[in-house]
């Protein structure tokens, strides 16, 4: 389909440098990057946030903001994107190169039908009658695997699920047969089971349409699943470029090795968990801290619509000193359960007892004294700190609120101890939250949660906003602190591999119901529920050869359903 034959160069980047003008002076985001992608090939650009991977990709489409200055060459056919005119740039966008965005729900305009939005690209590049454009839109929707394309072409974006929306976005990119597709984190916003399907679709784009794909991602599993070649970016430079098997098999650069080592693998936690379970067996007999029986939580509906039941008849226990991992996709109710235990969401049915207090119909005044025994770590460390207080003041806040210290200054000695416990230097206490990196902020968040030495810690996706390499360290720290302080924890995550590292027991949620619960070895080793099995098989592993086998397994599993 692509005008290029397989193996011909689709894009060639030579010595690209991009500089941004910011309030803090000039910042060089990309520094002398040279890359090339051929037709029918997937090049993955990996790196942590801030490594310049997205900027590089945006340069290919000429999408840099006004504050950026680019030098070097980005050759698309005979056009150098860095220096061509705006008119020519508009011509080649869509026809030569197209983009798939990270968040499908924001990349689509909610007030137009998807058919109209696909036709928009056609209208910009040629004369199509309304009927022709629609026929073309139906054809392409059919190709990307939207069922009943002829009817659903008239649907609005909100009538599609997240994965289908991403299919529509890919259809928009494919409709003009571009030689190159730039996919910026195309699966990051999607659940892992949906991710596998979208990766399949992108693989088909490559195989059937001979499209060149630049895949930007931080997920090494996705790289192993889809990429042919990998470029590792670090601080604006390409530190290593290799084909996928040799990169995973024999990484050369120090940073690549570190990155690969940091990726959590399934099964790595089993040994640790068994050790811990053996130790805990000695302390058995204590009453559990959290007991949920037939827990139901409903969100009230608006104007006559029925209320939405987020959690439906869930029962579980968290014993003293035990880490329960709660896994599920978005919308499965896992965060709602965490918030209910923290007293942020009211429960509407069943029973939930937290530290001996029944949460059904509890008054804030009754619950407040118990809050000193509950720590909470939030998902996004960037927003969970008051931006106008220093780290020391933030960490001291629980001590002040519960009367253990008169003000932040009086608590400073204890704050310093806490910062040291989470391996942050004392001097960091005087910094403001925005002056810390994501991982450091999340560690400070842990320090705050542990300030009152709680019996129970609720961690809601504490690492999903972090880079893989940083995530590994935060998880390590979490495990260490858990050993040291001996708190019980509810660890909420969408990532099975992460939960596996930490949790003594794993509970799997699906559509508000608890479908499976057991030790890591039980749930991951011998899953009983079909959903758990699918979840496990969808999780891409950072090993190309093994991932190919798993892909086949998943296909069979899907056929069986």
């Amino acid at each position, binding site marked *: 389909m692509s005008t290029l034959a397989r193996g011909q160069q689709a894009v060639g980047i030579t010595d690209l440098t991009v500089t941004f003008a910011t309030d803090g002076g000039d910042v060089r985001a990309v520094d002398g990057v040279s890359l090339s992608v051929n037709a029918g090939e997937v090049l993955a650009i990996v790196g942590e946030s801030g*490594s310049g991977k997205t900027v590089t990709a945006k340069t290919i489409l000429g999408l840099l903001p006004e504050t950026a200055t680019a030098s070097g060459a980005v050759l698309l056919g005979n056009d150098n994107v860095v220096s061509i005119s705006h008119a020519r740039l508009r011509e080649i966008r869509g026809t030569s190169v197209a983009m798939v965005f990270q968040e499908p729900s924001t990349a689509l305009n909610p007030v137009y039908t998807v058919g109209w939005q696909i036709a928009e690209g056609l209208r910009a590049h040629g004369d199509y009658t309304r009927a022709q454009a629609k026929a073309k839109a139906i054809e392409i929707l059919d190709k990307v695997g939207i069922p009943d394309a002829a009817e659903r072409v008239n649907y609005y974006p909100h009538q599609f699920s997240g994965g289908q929306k991403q299919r529509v976005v890919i259809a928009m990119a494919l409709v003009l047969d571009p030689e190159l597709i730039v996919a910026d984190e195309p699966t990051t916003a999607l659940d892992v089971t949906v991710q596998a399907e979208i990766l399949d679709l992108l693989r088909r784009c490559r195989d059937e349409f001979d499209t060149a794909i630049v895949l930007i991602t931080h997920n090494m599993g996705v790289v192993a699943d889809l990429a042919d070649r990998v470029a590792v970016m670090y601080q604006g430079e390409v530190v290593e470029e290799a084909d996928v098997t040799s990169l995973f098999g024999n990484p050369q650069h120090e940073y690549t090795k570190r990155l690969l080592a940091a990726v959590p693998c399934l099964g790595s936690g089993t040994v640790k968990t068994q050790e811990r379970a053996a130790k805990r067996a000695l302390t058995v007999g204590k009453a559990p801290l959290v007991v949920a029986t037939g827990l139901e939580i409903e969100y009230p509906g608006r104007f006559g619509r029925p209320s939405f039941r987020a959690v439906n008849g869930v029962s579980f226990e968290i014993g003293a000193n035990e880490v329960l991992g709660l896994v599920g996709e978005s919308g499965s109710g896992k965060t709602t359960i965490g918030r209910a235990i923290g007293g942020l969401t009211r429960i509407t049915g069943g029973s939930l007892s937290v530290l001996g207090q029944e949460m059904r119909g509890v008054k804030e005044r009754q619950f407040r004294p118990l809050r000193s025994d509950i720590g909470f770590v939030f998902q996004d460390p960037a927003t969970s700190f008051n931006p106008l207080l220093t780290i020391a003041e933030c960490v001291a806040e629980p001590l002040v609120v*519960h009367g253990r210290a008169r003000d932040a200054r009086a608590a400073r000695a204890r704050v310093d101890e806490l910062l040291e416990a989470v391996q942050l230097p004392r001097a960091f206490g005087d910094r403001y939250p925005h002056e810390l*990196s994501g991982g450091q902020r999340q560690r400070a968040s842990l320090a705050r949660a542990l300030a009152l030495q709680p019996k129970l810690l609720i961690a809601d996706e504490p690492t999903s906003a972090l880079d893989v390499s940083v995530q590994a360290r935060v998880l390590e720290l979490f495990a260490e602190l858990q050993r040291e302080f001996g708190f019980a924890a509810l660890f909420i995550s969408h990532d099975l591999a992460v939960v596996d590292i930490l949790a003594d027991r794993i509970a799997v949620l699906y559509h508000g119901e608890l479908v499976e619960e057991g030790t890591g070895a039980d749930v991951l080793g011998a899953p009983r529920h079909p959903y758990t099995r699918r979840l496990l098989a969808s999780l891409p592993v950072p090993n190309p050869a093994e991932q190919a086998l798993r892909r086949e397994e998943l296909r069979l599993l899907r056929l069986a359903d």
Partner: protein
Amino acid sequence: MSINTAEHRSVARAKRPLWTRIPVVHQLRQSVGLQRGMLVAGLVLTAIFVLTAIFAPLLAPFGFSQLESGNKNFGAQQAPSSAHLLGTTVGGYDVLSRVIWGAQTALFVIVVAIVLSIFLGVVLGVVSGYLGGWLDRVLVVVCDAVYAFPTLLLAIVMSIVISGGKSNLVGGVLAAAISITVVFIPQYFRVIRAETVRIKAEAFVESAKVLGASSGRIMFRHILRNATRTLPLIFTLNASEAILTLAGLGFLGFGIEPTSAAEWGYDLNKSISDVTSGIWWTSVFPGLAIVLVVLGMTLVGESLNDLADPRLRTRRRAAAAVPPPGPTLDLAPGASSDIVGDLELERQS
């Protein structure tokens, strides 16, 4: 291994000197090009206005209610001359002196009006936005009702109610200021409430909540300071509106008597009949004073607005020829990164 990394790197970052962190000074240093021109022009006009108001007794050749000097009457409607640089009014007052003294009245009204409205508006906004419920609903309805009234009409009603027809300096100024206050409170209320409702959903407020902090502490320690970022902007825009309302009141005859204080709107009112008989100086100068002061404050307000928004703020373009010192992560300046430090450390060892 990671314990000391940051200390290795933490080059003691000196805080920016205090004077560069003062709101307007900070923005002035940040601005470039046309935005800087606008801001500087606005600041200059506003500074002239404030200085004139403060030093009015020294600057003005005569008092605001002076009709004669050395037993010699000024005479009414005299054209500009060496004795009266800007001429005299129909009432026999010196125009230049009235314009200068008028600045003092205007500043007085702005200060009183804004001090009265800002505190009440902000506190009501935070409480209403955070607590919600019936209190919120009632306050929003009341503010909407005040909004729905024509501003000037409301100010007229209030000034009649407050001053009861009398108009000495304090009474007149307070009447004008309080009537403006009534109109402004809903503005501050609405802005702060909207910010509070947004911030209430932020994770750091929830994290304060799970710590068990009381509602008062959350409102005034965690939310208030984060919600007041837009205040300097509304503040300057409202200041210019306050002057317009005061001038409007004076123009319509609800202002301050000439014997109590000089007031631009009153002078304009009295000069209406002059315009048709070719006497331009009695109306042009008070009118010009109003226009320049409002322009100055609006320019300051609008440029602060543009500078506060990173998308509207213009920056010096990156110099392509001179390469900056190496790549940086997309974090705030001065932020540290986990990985960079570790690698550096390993390279050293």
